[in-house]
């Protein structure tokens, strides 16, 4: 039973986290503008998140300490606080994108403008965080989020020339209509959308809360590998559908209704319905995860009681942080910023913030005091270090690229 729970956590983290508003928007835009030429970025991001989620889960299992606890200890209170501030802000911008995604899902169903659905999204999120048993929510998100496989079905039904798809994926070449800077900029945003930092905060805190022990190490590995690889399949097929439908017709992706056209074009109403359910579940799941993450990181930095399994009364400040985050997020959605533009920017900032969280994880995963014999092996360390360097390069390049390309236009 507990094993099943552990694996659910991984799959939910990836459905709500890996494939969320950020990925839905970015994969659509990427496919429409760059075809299959940026699929390698998804592969890169998947390996990175799999390696680091497994480490974070292992640390949480053996040391009973979630990621942000480790961050403060290793970075010290000053850099820890800087990371807290940055992560909190990135989470809030991400939350804006996710809440907008939930509201837009309602808009696409009813035709009523999404602004009016923001309060409903807010109340729904609050209610679930406040009252609903978490396992129940995890299962609902996990199972209904599977409808996003509609992209895989749609891609298969489009009968693409697979050898050409493979060729474009493995030997990527930037389309001549796009500049190299835009190519790299969208690549950075796509990378950020796949490995937004909140996924690790959520995953490791969940592992601590569910009281994983040594016997859960295997399920940790399975769930982090299987969960995120599943997320990657969704991302790649979503890029595929956009590449096959939008790119040849020169259709730009500026809103979610365009993205919804992909599955609808191939599978009709059924495709649209599956996409809308998936859109709602993934963005709603991510809304919960990001909100919880903000509660987790602030509480863990200051040493307050935290946890979704405690009653709100037993973790008052944790719950206060979550409520405040939700309110700020919903307020920003209502200021009528373009939700797709906000999502793009959130994902770039997500990429900027990664090294400050990933570095302490790699250090502690090597600490034999905690990890005993389950510390990182040599091969894993070499690979993880290489990816850490990649993350740092991406983080450093993100802002200059953003300015250089004027937000990728």
């Amino acid at each position, binding site marked *: 039973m507990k094993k099943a729970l552990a694996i659910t956590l991984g799959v939910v983290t990836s459905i709500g986290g890996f494939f969320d508003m950020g990925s839905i928007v970015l994969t659509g835009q990427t496919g429409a503008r760059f075809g299959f030429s940026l699929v390698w970025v998804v592969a890169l991001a998947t390996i990175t998140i799999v390696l680091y989620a497994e480490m974070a889960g292992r640390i949480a299992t053996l040391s009973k300490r979630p990621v942000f606890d480790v961050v403060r200890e290793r970075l*010290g*209170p000053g850099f820890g606080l800087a990371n807290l501030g940055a992560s909190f802000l990135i989470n809030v911008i991400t939350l804006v994108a996710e809440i907008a995604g939930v509201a837009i899902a309602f808009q696409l169903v009813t035709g009523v403008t999404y602004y009016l659905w923001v309060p409903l999204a807010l109340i729904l999120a609050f209610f679930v965080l406040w009252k609903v048993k978490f396992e129940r929510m995890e299962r609902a998100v996990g199972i209904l989020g599977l409808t996003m496989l509609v992209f895989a079905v749609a891609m298969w039904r489009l009968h693409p020339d697979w050898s050409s798809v493979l060729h474009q994926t493995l030997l990527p070449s930037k389309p001549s209509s796009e500049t190299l800077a835009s190519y790299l900029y969208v690549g950075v945003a796509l990378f950020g959308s796949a490995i937004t930092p909140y996924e690790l905060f959520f995953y490791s805190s969940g592992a601590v809360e569910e009281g994983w022990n040594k016997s859960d190490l295997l399920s940790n590995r399975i769930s982090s590998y299987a969960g995120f690889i599943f997320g990657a399949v969704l991302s790649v097929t979503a890029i595929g559908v956009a590449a096959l439908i939008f790119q040849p017709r020169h259709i730009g992706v500026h809103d979610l209704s365009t993205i919804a056209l992909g599955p609808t074009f191939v599978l009709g109403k059924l495709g649209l319905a599956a996409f809308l359910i998936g859109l709602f579940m993934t963005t709603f799941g991510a809304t919960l995860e990001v909100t919880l993450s903000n509660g987790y990181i602030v509480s863990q930095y200051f040493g307050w009681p935290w946890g979704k399994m405690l009653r709100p009364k037993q973790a008052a400040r944790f719950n206060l942080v979550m409520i405040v985050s939700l309110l700020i997020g919903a307020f920003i959605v209502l200021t009528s910023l373009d939700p797709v533009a906000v999502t793009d920017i959130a994902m770039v900032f997500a990429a900027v913030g990664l090294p400050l969280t990933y570095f302490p994880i790699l250090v502690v995963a090597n600490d034999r005091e*905690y990890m005993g014999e389950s510390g990182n092996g040599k091969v894993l360390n070499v690979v993880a270090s290489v990816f850490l360097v990649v993350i740092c390069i991406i983080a450093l390049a993100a802002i200059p690229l953003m300015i250089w390309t004027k937000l990728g236009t």
Partner: protein
Amino acid sequence: MTRDIFDLDLDILDRQMLDSAGVPCGNVDDLELEFVDGPNKPPVVTKILTTPGALGPRIGGLTGRIITGIWRWFHPERDPQPVAIDWKDVVIVDFAVHLSVHREEAGLSRGEDWVRDHIIGKIPGA
């Protein structure tokens, strides 16, 4: 992690504290060392300092002053001091610093209690 030698910076500072009931009650924000056996002998850790009143000075600079300032603003006392816990109240140090005192007794539950009583506790279903 049972052992005899601790690295104060890595193993004690910034670590989660749990009270006698096992409830999180802050982090080790700073330590107080005293020359108990005279100036020629090594100093001894006598107290754990915690709450933002101890965190602010440790971070230092403008950020530190802002943290201390916010903490003083919210504190009911006019000239508040950071909470100090005697080192003899530390039971064991593993993934957390376990204390033998209750959080209320140690003065560590003020913030949590205030938010619970004035905000969260008032929302139905809490």
